């Protein structure tokens, strides 16, 4: 029975010109977007890898200089995107790609590529995620908007019911047909990318789990949309109304809800301006963490404690260069201040994320979007992860330089110079992406919301079928 229903539905799709064209055009757009995205990823990877190497060379070739000068000269670290960003480049355009690591300052990531582009760039690009998240849902609408309503309009619904077949089965057959197109395109996407990688040796076992994660996430999203479209088709009884209603849902899901959530998130939990942020950091640096223990007071205390510890009465008599030691302690103090302020920023970001999760009540697109970016390691939390790792490296790097000054020179010996051996002894910055388990844990709420959407829409469709 089911196979007859599926066969008839597929035949009708095949015979309908606009569906054939829509499917062909979508496939072409998807293929083009995959190629473009792959090329873009490859060239960016090359550029950043090269830049990292040059930067490392510059660091190593500083020649002889005071370690603290080297700490001020600093170094740049560059973010390398995962191959998964080919499917979903996420927020890459809107986050900085390089961080300057220097003494005394934790800098934010620089060179946001969107900052060098006009308003046209804000319209978006043809990337695989654009097709998967925005265009395939339209294809689902095209396939399903009149799936049930045309049976009313042609008078065939009564005929079907008199054949003694259950409406649940009929609906399931229609559901499978609509759903299968979206899955076919998803499979096409992932297989194409894996093939591209296999030709260029990008294939890695670690990322396979992530591809599987994509393969679980997107079908749930499509299943929710198929449920909604078929429900609308069944309830509206007129194809034109069904089409308009389905499109309205698409607009609310994909644009209205996310933009409204963005505006509300910024309204209720605004970020401080860069100036306010730096002023707060400066104030804490001057007045001490939370207004207590300003550094000059702490420095005095440190001096007394150190002299007492080593049983000497003058800094010159210490077995190390106290200036270097004090600079390191000062550095640790500053790092704590930065940690506090960046944590506050993170907590604002978290509260903003909460608004987006609330908006997910109105749109299954939002949790899918966030989960997809999470799996591709192109979301905000991944950027924080990179930034935190860079900060950790900066602290270690500056510590190594300060301690070299402390251990290898004497107090007030500002002519001390270290050489390339020291610079090269500091290991290269290596960054490992977040584990998929970490990501899935972070995306728990989004996954739960999607699950709820799926459950509710499926139940509603099932109940509606029985009442037809």
């Amino acid at each position: 029975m089911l196979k007859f229903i599926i066969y008839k539905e597929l035949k009708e799709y095949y015979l309908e010109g606009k569906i054939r064209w829509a499917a062909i055009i979508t496939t072409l757009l998807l293929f083009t977007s995959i190629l473009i995205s792959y090329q873009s990823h490859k060239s960016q990877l090359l550029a950043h890898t090269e830049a990292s190497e040059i930067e490392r060379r510059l660091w190593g070739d500083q020649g002889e200089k005071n370690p603290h000068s080297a700490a001020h000269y600093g170094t740049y670290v560059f973010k390398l995107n995962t191959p998964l960003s080919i499917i979903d480049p996420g927020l890459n355009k809107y986050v900085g790609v390089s961080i300057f690591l220097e003494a005394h300052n934790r800098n934010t990531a620089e060179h946001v590529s969107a900052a060098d582009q006009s308003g046209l760039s804000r319209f978006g690009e043809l990337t695989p995620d654009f097709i998967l998240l925005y265009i395939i849902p339209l294809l689902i609408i095209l396939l399903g908007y009149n799936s049930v309503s045309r049976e009313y309009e042609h008078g065939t619904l009564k005929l079907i019911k008199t054949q003694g077949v259950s409406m649940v089965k009929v609906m399931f057959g229609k559901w499978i047909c609509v759903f299968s197109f979206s899955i076919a395109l998803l499979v096409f996407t992932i297989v194409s990318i894996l093939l591209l990688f296999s030709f260029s040796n990008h294939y890695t076992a670690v990322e396979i789990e992530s591809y599987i994660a994509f393969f679980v996430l997107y079908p749930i999203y499509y299943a929710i949309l198929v449920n909604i479209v078929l429900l609308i088709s069944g309830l509206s009884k007129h194809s034109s109304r069904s089409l308009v209603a389905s499109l309205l849902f698409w607009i609310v899901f994909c644009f209205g809800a996310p933009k409204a959530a963005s505006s509300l998130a910024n309204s209720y939990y605004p970020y401080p301006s860069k100036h306010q942020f730096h002023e707060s950091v400066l104030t804490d640096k001057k007045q001490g963490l939370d207004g207590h223990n300003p550094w000059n007071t702490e420095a005095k205390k440190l001096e007394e404690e150190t002299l007492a510890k080593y049983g000497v009465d003058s800094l010159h008599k210490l077995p190390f260069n106290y200036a270097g030691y004090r600079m390191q302690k000062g550095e640790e103090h500053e790092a704590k201040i930065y940690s506090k302020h960046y944590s506050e920023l993170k907590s604002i970001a978290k509260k903003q994320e909460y608004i987006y999760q609330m908006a997910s009540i109105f749109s299954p697109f939002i949790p899918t979007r966030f989960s997809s970016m999470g799996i591709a390691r192109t979301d905000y939390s991944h950027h924080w992860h990179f930034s935190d790792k860079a900060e950790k490296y900066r602290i270690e790097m500056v510590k190594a330089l300060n301690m070299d000054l402390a251990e290898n020179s004497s107090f007030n010996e500002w002519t001390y110079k270290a050489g390339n051996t020291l610079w090269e002894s500091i290991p290269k910055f290596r960054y490992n992406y977040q584990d998929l388990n970490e990501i899935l844990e972070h995306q728990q709420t989004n996954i739960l919301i999607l699950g709820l959407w799926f459950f509710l829409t499926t139940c509603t469709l099932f109940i509606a079928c029985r009442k037809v």
Partner: protein
Amino acid sequence: MFKINFKNEVQLFKRNRILHILSIIMFIMVFFSMSTGKEKIQSRNTDIQNEMEELKSYDASLIKKFKQKESGEKLEKPWELGASYISSYRGAVSYMPSKELSFIAIGQSDIYTHQKKVSSYGTDVILDLTELSNPTQLYFGSFDLSFTLIYLLPLLIIAFSYNIVSESRENGTLSLVLSQPLNITTWLSHRVCIRLFIICTIVFTSIFINLIVFNEFQFSLSLFCFLLITFVYILFWFSLSFFINLKRYNSVMNAFILFTIWIVTVFIIPNLINNYINNFHPLPSHAKMLNEIRLTQAKLDKVKDATLQNFLENHPELIDETNTDFGFFQKYVASKKQLKKELTQIVHSYELLIEKRDKMAQMLSLLSPTALLQEAYEEIAGTSLAHYKNYKKQHQEFSEAWLNFFIPYIFKQTTFTKETLTHLPTFTYQTFSRWSVIYRFLTVVLLYIGVIVFYEVKREKKRNIEELLFI
């Protein structure tokens, strides 16, 4: 015929509940989007004001300290009254104030800051004007008025006009209409114009009421331009509806085609343009520019003394025979000047590539009325990339003037007094406008409209009534 069509359309509109609901939704969206824009502007102006207030209060504390010095009191930190400290620590502030209609399009204002400290310390050749923001917000964009008008308004127009002919056919009135002594193109154009009038009334009333509610209503050239380009955009979508209505399709197909045109116009074309630009005219490599800058910095770092010597040779007026003891800050200033000279070339070539890319993007935007409209809205709001580039240029020029003001004080050790404080250079923002953007939108979109309408009017004689009636 126009009068009777007008009466008929108004009667139909009055009894179409769905359109009433859509109109109310449009009003609410205009309200919400305007309030989003207003909030952003208020926050921007508050930030600028706060920084100016901070500067004022710092100056007040400096004056107090100057008075203390004059009265012979010993200051805890006497260097705070020195030219070097004032030029670097106090610095100045450059800012880009909002325009009267900045709230209509957030544009690039969510990426950039609108005020920046000017200091003699640090280099501004590679000036970073980006603001602290959540990239998720940047990605999704804001629900501002330009979004409502560019993305959502065409959907209202489509909902309102996709089935003028097809619905008539489906309800049997088309054959009655065609049995009257009239021209179908004229009849349809009357109905399209009347619906255009109704939509404009709904949209402009929503805008005017909200302008009054938000206390932003004032007659100005900007407001006129904004309304004019919005009207032309509405006209564009109605001309598309006019074109599709005269084709042999049923209501569902009309809705489908117009919606597809919406997808292509609002998403696909701009996306494809972006893809083309990014692939064939990619952004020059930041990383590469950074490497070149770092190399130059490293090179200059090694020759600070020589740089200072070179600088003084070029500026003999700064040599004071009585004082040749130049310290860190003098060397720093000399190096900064030299660094700026060398980096400017690197940055300039990078910016030239970006400019070339922008020009290509502008040319390709001619294919997309939505991209042109976004550009026009950003121009009126003062939130386009060009505005921020111009602001950056003004900041850098002021930065140069600021440093130059202090150079005699830094090198010749001229005394910095309380009176000098009142003569410090202050930043004045020079308004930046590009009327060409507005003209471009109007010319190109009116051309598109003209082509569509002219084509249909020309085809009138060959029009096949059979096809329209589905005979």
